[in-house]
């Protein structure tokens, strides 16, 4: 049977899985991707933004052919209370190199395109089939069982997402990913005519907006809102930490509804047509929740490996998934040279990740998740900023105070010690 075995079977046709398939197929390896959805991307969702660099390295100039939505040239961050918003707005032009670019994307389309690239390179895809179990022999993973069929491979790459049931079955992922380590993301896709969308957001034909919101959207819990402009739709959603969800006096769907009705958001989506409602869990704990990545005959990659970073001002997962998928594929190719697919033979996966931005960035921001657990960031500070603005801009005929006093008053409400403490921690964490 071993003559018929694939070099690699990849479970899951997301970005990590498709990238691994592409790299393996390009090197002439015999690779099969198994996806439970009806097409690559059919089970996947994103907030909306792909940092180009890692895919740009593999497919230079990919954005010219891939179904990207818009090039992000406008960054906004807002601090929100129930009825106010204070916004920072940074508008730039196309960067001088594609590796610095980022695009808004929709996964239903984008993942299909990437799968097609892998298929053209020679990878095989089976869709609509769920992998139920891993085949084991002498403690090694030697293939998969799907729909009653057994398929053998020298290596199985688990790219099956944040709820990696197969990773759990092996004991590589802890059975219950801690609630503190994860958040839930909900998103609505809202269609608007292209011209109207560009007018509302003050952008030209291909330009796009990436907008993050702290405070009110996640009801004061860890998380925040997001808005990304697509070609002719808006991805509007929020992320909410699951660690203290039982303390919330609002349900997650209600948070989303209230966010849509916030005075900052409402006019932007007015008249738009909601065409999809999606949700997914996001791994948020960074390097502290990494599972075992390698065992005999098996590797974990992408969200299944917990590769995701949330720094408040940028949120990354897809660029990490692509780089990790590439690293996993290279490790298989290396193992093939010595025909050793044990954990030792696959060890270069870890080395490649450690040497790349993936683990270096994950390590650099190792304290960010703990910093983000601080409720003041999502509750007290957005209110403080909004109050300072209200004090500055309100004229009602009562005798004025110097600006300095107005600001100090609001800082005092939060507590100087808290401000200093959080300021230092924040600087250290990010």
């Amino acid at each position, binding site marked *: 049977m071993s003559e018929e075995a694939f070099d690699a079977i990849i479970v899951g046709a997301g970005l990590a899985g498709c990238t691994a398939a592409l790299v393996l197929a390009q090197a002439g390896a015999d690779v099969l991707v198994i996806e*439970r*959805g*009806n097409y690559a*991307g*059919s*089970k*996947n*969702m*994103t907030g909306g933004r792909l940092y180009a660099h890692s895919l740009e390295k593999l497919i230079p100039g990919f954005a010219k052919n891939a179904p990207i939505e818009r090039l992000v040239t406008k960054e906004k961050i807002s601090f929100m209370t*129930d009825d106010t918003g204070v916004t920072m707005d940074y508008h730039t032009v196309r960067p001088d190199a594609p590796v610095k670019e980022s695009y808004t994307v*929709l*996964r*239903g*389309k984008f*993942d299909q395109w990437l799968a097609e690239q892998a298929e053209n390179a020679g990878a095989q895809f089976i869709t*609509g*089939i*769920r992998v139920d179990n891993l085949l084991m022999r002498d403690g090694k993973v030697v293939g998969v069982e*799907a*729909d009653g069929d057994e398929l053998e491979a020298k290596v199985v790459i688990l790219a099956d*997402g*944040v*709820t990696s*049931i197969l990773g759990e079955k092996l004991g590589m992922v802890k*059975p*219950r*990913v*801690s*609630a503190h380590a*994860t958040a*839930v*993301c*909900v998103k*609505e*896709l809202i269609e608007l005519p292209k011209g109207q969308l560009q007018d509302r957001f003050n952008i030209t034909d291909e330009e796009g907006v990436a907008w993050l919101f702290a405070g009110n959207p996640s009801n004061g819990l860890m998380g925040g809102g997001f808005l990304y402009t697509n070609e002719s*739709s808006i991805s509007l959603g929020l992320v*909410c930490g*699951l660690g203290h*969800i*039982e303390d*919330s006096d*609002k*349900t*997650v*769907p*209600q948070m*989303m*509804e*209230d966010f*849509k*009705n916030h005075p900052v958001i409402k006019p932007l989506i007015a008249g738009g047509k*909601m*065409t*999809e*409602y*999606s*949700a*997914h*869990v996001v791994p948020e704990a960074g390097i502290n929740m990494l599972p075992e990545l390698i065992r005999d005959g098996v590797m974990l990659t992408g969200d299944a490996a917990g590769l995701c970073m949330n720094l408040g001002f940028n949120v990354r997962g897809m660029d990490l998934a692509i780089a990790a998928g590439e690293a996993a594929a290279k490790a298989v190719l290396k193992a093939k040279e010595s025909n050793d697919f044990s954990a030792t033979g696959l060890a270069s996966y870890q080395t490649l990740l450690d040497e790349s931005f993936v683990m270096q960035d994950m390590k650099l921001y190792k304290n960010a998740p703990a910093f983000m657990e601080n409720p003041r960031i999502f509750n007290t500070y957005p209110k403080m900023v909004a109050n300072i603005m209200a004090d500055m801009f309100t004229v009602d005929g009562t005798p004025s105070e110097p600006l300095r006093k107005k600001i100090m008053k609001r800082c005092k409400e939060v507590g100087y010690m808290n401000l200093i403490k959080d300021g230092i921690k924040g600087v250290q964490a990010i």
Partner: protein
Amino acid sequence: MSDAVNVDVKLGVNKFYVDEEQPHIVIKDHPDMQEFRKLMIACPAGLYKLLDDGSIRFDYAGCLECGTCKILCGDTILEKWEFPRGTFGIEYRYG
């Protein structure tokens, strides 16, 4: 503030292939209500419901397969949590 959300209307625009034969999530009989309450708050699809007569209802048909209930209550009040069989479940046209 806005009106109470109607999640069913939102789910109505999605494309689902419901597996009528095999539910992919099953909750235990008489679940701990404190745990159940977490899911009432967190489930993006609002599938965990407490009815006026105090009984509970769960319907897997509108599941977005996000994994939230598995993470919060997978080892407490869920009897079973798996992905729907191949081809079944939510199909994101945009994602």
